[in-house]
């Protein structure tokens, strides 16, 4: 049942993402989403995906939420002078034609205050709120703790 629900959700979010919010709005496509299993409930989770602006107007990712987490932050891991740190972004501009890829070691959604541990094989839902494209719901598979990319 859960699986069917997930498939249906994936289908709808793909349609919503491909179609954009309305005719004039910039089209935002969200692709290859995946999350990484978390070690414990008390440890943050991470999720990754690619955002493409297929329209000809800039858009901006304003806020990300998830029913699975208390807070979702837009983070970027930076290795500067050998020191790994995570910077928080207040939002993210997506230029027309641009493709922004979240990937391990770079941009990631940091899931704080997980309601429960993310297990491999489950699905995770994120809501991405864009300034112009509006809300896009994305359902993604939770891959193993050692996963380094989408399947």
């Amino acid at each position, binding site marked *: 049942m859960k699986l069917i629900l997930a498939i249906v959700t994936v289908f709808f979010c793909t349609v919503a993402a491909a179609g954009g919010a309305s005719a004039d709005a910039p089209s935002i496509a969200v692709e290859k989403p995946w999350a*990484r*299993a*978390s*070690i*414990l409930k*008390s*440890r*943050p*989770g*991470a999720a990754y995906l690619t955002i493409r602006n297929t329209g000809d*107007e800039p858009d901006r990712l304003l806020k990300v939420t998830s029913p699975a987490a*208390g*807070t979702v*932050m837009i*983070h970027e*891991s930076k*290795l500067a*002078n*050998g*020191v*790994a*740190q*995570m*910077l*928080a*972004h*207040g*939002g993210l501009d997506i230029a027309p034609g641009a493709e922004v890829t979240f990937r*391990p*070691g770079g941009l*990631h959604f*940091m*899931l*704080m*205050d997980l309601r429960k541990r993310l297990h491999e094989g489950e699905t995770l839902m994120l809501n991405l709120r864009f300034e112009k494209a509006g809300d896009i719901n994305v359902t993604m598979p939770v891959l*193993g*703790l*050692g*996963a*380094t990319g989408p399947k």
Partner: protein
Amino acid sequence: MPDGAPETPALGRRLKIVRRAAWALILVTTMAAAGFAGWKTFAPAKPPTARQVGEALIKTQFNLTDHYGRAVKEKDFRGQWQLVFFGYTFCPDVCPTTLSVMARALDLLGDDAAKVAPLFITVDPGRDTPEVLAEFVGAFHPRIVGLTGTQEQIKAAAKSFRIYVGRVDKPDVPGGYLMGHSGYMYLMTPEGTYDAVFSENRNPPEDIAAAIKKRLTKERSGR
């Protein structure tokens, strides 16, 4: 922004963008300052910049507790090459990535992996207990050893590797802080001296495995 947009919303949006930019800047600056403060508090050597580091000064030296709860010292790993990474389990991005690179390199080494001790030393001993580490390292590779200890022991271990460890207080994060840490994996000789440095973003597992294989071959041919 489209031309001829009503003036007020356009101005409002511009202001919003300015405000956002200001916030982002404040955040980054705060984190940088916090990182710097953390660095000063921990007072380790300068963050190592791969090649400029006083490599001769880096050595495997520690008194720590492994993820089985056993007390271990550097001499427990003498005779094996050591692949050492400092991280922590509250780091869901770079740390799992580095450990999976490490795990893949070990798999690529095949039987030779037995000649390498892969060590994951936490920089967050307050939260990374042996039990937590067992679950964490176990998820990557059965051979990776998780090491923790007291704050003092971790500080001493970080110092022997000339590793940067900095605490960044963040009230919005569960537990209130994150750690800045070295993003490097160090390859140490069986004698515990520095030999090479790798990072997950520059060295694919194939490179790391090949570098280790080369050394093992040299070792077998009597150097």
